[in-house]
């Protein structure tokens, strides 16, 4: 297979042979590449923004705020302050004379008008260069306005999204422990690393409720400042998503001695497994919890399996490609595709770690291509050469898939359908099924040529 891989990227792309492969990763993108990666600010912004009763002020030129305005469907059951876009809109004179005064005035006005429970102030590239003292302004405004005003050190150039996640966790951690952890059940958790896209966190909360587990704080989907302030009262942290909130869990373990479990709510196996390990964790306090969990999983599965089986019959043998932000999601997707009879022939991520890629090599089939920090040229080559039927990715990958006549499933932040939980697995199966079997593909020139090739094979054979 000859592919257009940059020489410098050779060891960031491997074909799985025996499951012991490693992928070089966590490297800076090669300058000049059409990278699919984003920046530190982007990482911080997407993690913190679902906290719905906080003010999110972006200190920088307008673009950083414009491009991140309401880009995720992170739903709130109450206030929706997070869905507005606030920017100091730095202008040339601010770049020359500094933007601190403007930032102060903006905070003063916004806090007075909206009465948020806290304010996050995001630093952008330019703020790092002109040297505004974000920390000093935030301290001053905290004192003046009597709410936590928290700087987020998210200058874009300091790395990729991963560093942004860390900056976000550091910012959130300043809140943790500032509330009173009273009246919290010993069987209680915080949900970390779920952003309530299409209401997903509500599905998970519902499962936990049925198991008798109290959720103290959502971090950050449908999040609330006061919950985060007292979340150190929870007995356990459940951490989903590769990088986004793992650092926060580690900080809470160190300072408050709260253990954490890594979970995934995507796919049947991972969803069930996640609930079982929670049950196991609390089984010494609640004798019935394991039975309750088994019942819950049983009931949920009974509801979705008949249809999934039907879908599986129709999708059997089809091939999928996965390119996502964090590798953790890819683990679950590989299993989920297997569940609906499909094989994953390409899997990659923007920000996977060495550990992530070892795991991917272990769980994928021989022949699967594993990539780190890929680009459109590579991805389109793989899609064509591997004969992919459906591509799972984000906004930048979607039109590439469609141009190539390949079905697409948005598993990124733009999705409007819940894909987590058992119901989510059914939604996922339906979406893949719909996209793959849609009659529109029969008009697609790429599919026509596939059909022609097949019929000519038959003739010759």
């Amino acid at each position, binding site marked *: 297979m000859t592919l257009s891989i940059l020489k410098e990227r050779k060891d960031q792309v491997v074909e799985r042979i025996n499951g012991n492969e490693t992928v070089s990763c966590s490297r800076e*993108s090669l300058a*000049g*590449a*059409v990278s699919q990666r984003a920046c530190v600010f982007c990482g911080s912004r997407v993690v913190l923004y679902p906290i719905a009763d906080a003010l999110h002020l972006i200190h920088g030129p307008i673009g950083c705020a414009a*491009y991140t305005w309401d880009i995720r469907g992170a739903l709130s059951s109450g206030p929706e302050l997070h869905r*507005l876009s606030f920017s100091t809109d730095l202008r040339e004179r601010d770049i020359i004379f500094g933007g601190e005064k403007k930032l102060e005035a903006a905070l003063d006005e916004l806090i007075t008008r909206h009465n948020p429970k806290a304010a996050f102030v995001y630093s952008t590239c*330019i703020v*790092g260069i002109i040297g505004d003292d974000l920390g000093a302004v935030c301290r001053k405004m905290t004192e003046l306005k009597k709410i936590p005003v928290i700087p987020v050190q998210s200058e874009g150039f300091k790395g990729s999204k991963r560093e942004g996640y860390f900056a976000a966790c550091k910012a959130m951690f300043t809140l943790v422990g500032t509330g009173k952890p009273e009246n919290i059940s010993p069987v209680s958790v915080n949900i970390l690393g779920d952003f309530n896209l299409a209401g997903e966190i509500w599905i998970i909360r519902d499962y936990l409720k049925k198991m008798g587990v109290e959720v103290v704080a959502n971090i950050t989907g449908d999040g609330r400042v006061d919950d985060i302030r007292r979340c150190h009262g929870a007995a356990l942290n459940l951490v989903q998503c590769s990088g986004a909130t793992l650092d926060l869990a580690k900080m809470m373990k160190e300072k408050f001695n709260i253990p954490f479990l890594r979970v995934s709510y995507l796919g049947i196996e991972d969803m069930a497994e996640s609930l079982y390990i929670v049950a196991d964790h609390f089984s010494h306090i609640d004798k019935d919890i394991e039975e309750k969990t088994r019942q819950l999983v049983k009931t949920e599965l009974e509801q979705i399996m008949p249809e999934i089986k039907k879908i599986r019959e129709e999708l059997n043998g089809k091939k999928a490609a996965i390119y996502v932000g964090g590798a953790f999601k890819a683990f679950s997707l590989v299993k989920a595709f297997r569940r609906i009879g499909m094989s994953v022939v390409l899997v990659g991520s923007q920000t996977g770690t060495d550990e992530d890629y070892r795991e991917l090599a272990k769980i994928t089939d021989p022949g699967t291509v594993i990539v780190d920090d890929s680009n459109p040229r590579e991805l389109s080559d793989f899609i064509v050469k591997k004969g992919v039927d459906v591509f799972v990715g984000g906004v930048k990958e979607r039109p590439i898939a469609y141009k190539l006549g390949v079905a697409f499933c948005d598993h990124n932040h733009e999705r409007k359908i819940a894909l987590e939980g058992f119901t989510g697995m059914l939604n996922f199966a339906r979406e893949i099924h719909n996209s793959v079997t849609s009659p529109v593909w029969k008009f*697609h*020139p790429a599919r026509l040529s596939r059909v022609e090739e097949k019929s000519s094979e038959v003739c010759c054979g």
Partner: protein
Amino acid sequence: MLHHTPDEISERHALKVNPAKTCQPIGAMYAALGVHGCLPHSHGSQGCCSYHRSHLTRHYKEPVMASTSSFTEGASVFGGGPNLRQSLKTIFQVYNPDIVAVHTTCLSETIGDDLPSIIKSAVEDKTVPEGKHVIHCNTPSYVGSHVTGYSNMAAGIVKCLCEKDETESKRINVIPGFTDPSDMRKIKGMLKEMKADFIMFPDTSGVLDTPQTAEYKMYPDGGAKISDIMRAGGSSLSLCLGKWSSEAAGVELEKKCSVPFRVLDLPIGVLATDRFVEAVSQELGLPVPKSIRDERGKLVDMLTDYQQYLYKKKVAIFGDPDTVIPMTEFLLSAGMMPKHIITGTPGKAFEKRIDSMMKEHGHDYEYNCSNSADLFYLHQLIKKEPVDLLIGNTYGKYIAAEENIPFVRFGFPILDRVGHSHFPKAGYMGGMHFISGVINTLLDKMDRETPEDMTMELVA
């Protein structure tokens, strides 16, 4: 979601809430895509490039390719020169475009990278292969808006590519403002119908509205050809369609190649299209063909057929100056009352132009017009003085939903609807397409809210 907007309009100086603009580099990236075989290059952090590509992809529903210098902490302290050099090396080795269009970001602009000398040395030491081009422009994100970025890249294209040619020719350059490929295609179509000799750039038709071919082309067939752009220095006149986004390129062409220029509006609506057609006809001494006159007739026919639904309807409109100005004029032609007219792009000339347009139409009603405004402000204006129709980009939908106002999408970006890449708003036919959208949207609401026994007449 907009229940957080208070009724009382508050004085604001320090911030924007729900912006009606974005930053320069995305405009430069869009303009660069209007050159055939061009890879736009973002000289800054990789996030900028990623955001611009995502945003353009969401609007055009097409893959958008651009490379980035991937700035790191080191680059932002010691300068991005090495990153740009490495970028050019990578780009020509791997992506092999005919031309690379470099724009800056707030980061590279502030640390003061000197693009011309970095590019010059890359050309000299053959990092840029022979026969390939690297053009550039400065797009500080903290000046102007995305429209300014488009303008700067259009001027950059002239600066780096156009050549002086004094042989006499009767040919026009057309530099369209920041608008959709559908409009650019329509403008070209009118010029062809008139049998005009013209060179148009940037031209994103055929780049961001491509057909399904089963082949993924990194450089689609469309876009202005480099050889044509070079020849633009020998044309007899440049028509700059949009003061904000195209005048700078015209000025540059005059300075560099002594080609005079005229600034016109984008041909949106009856009057602006008239002026465009007249200007072409006059300069090239060409008659206006029957096909174009017929199109005009159909648009006027539609306006008269439905005038009762349009007349005195109050409208709020927001967007970029070069599209909002002719659209406001179009609304006035149709008998509507633009009540709140705002743009996020800074520049007092916007208000002046709207004011004089209102006077020309003999209007003496109160209206609000602001440059450098945002959608929070517009929402407050609408709460204070309600309107019958809202026209603007995707973000208007929140205001429309909150206030139950019929809403017609227009401008950039439109992230949540389809069609704008293919169905123009420019030209007489584009006017028909747009105004039928307006009429149908108003009628939909009337039908919905009229009791069943009093439904709308079937033939209006």
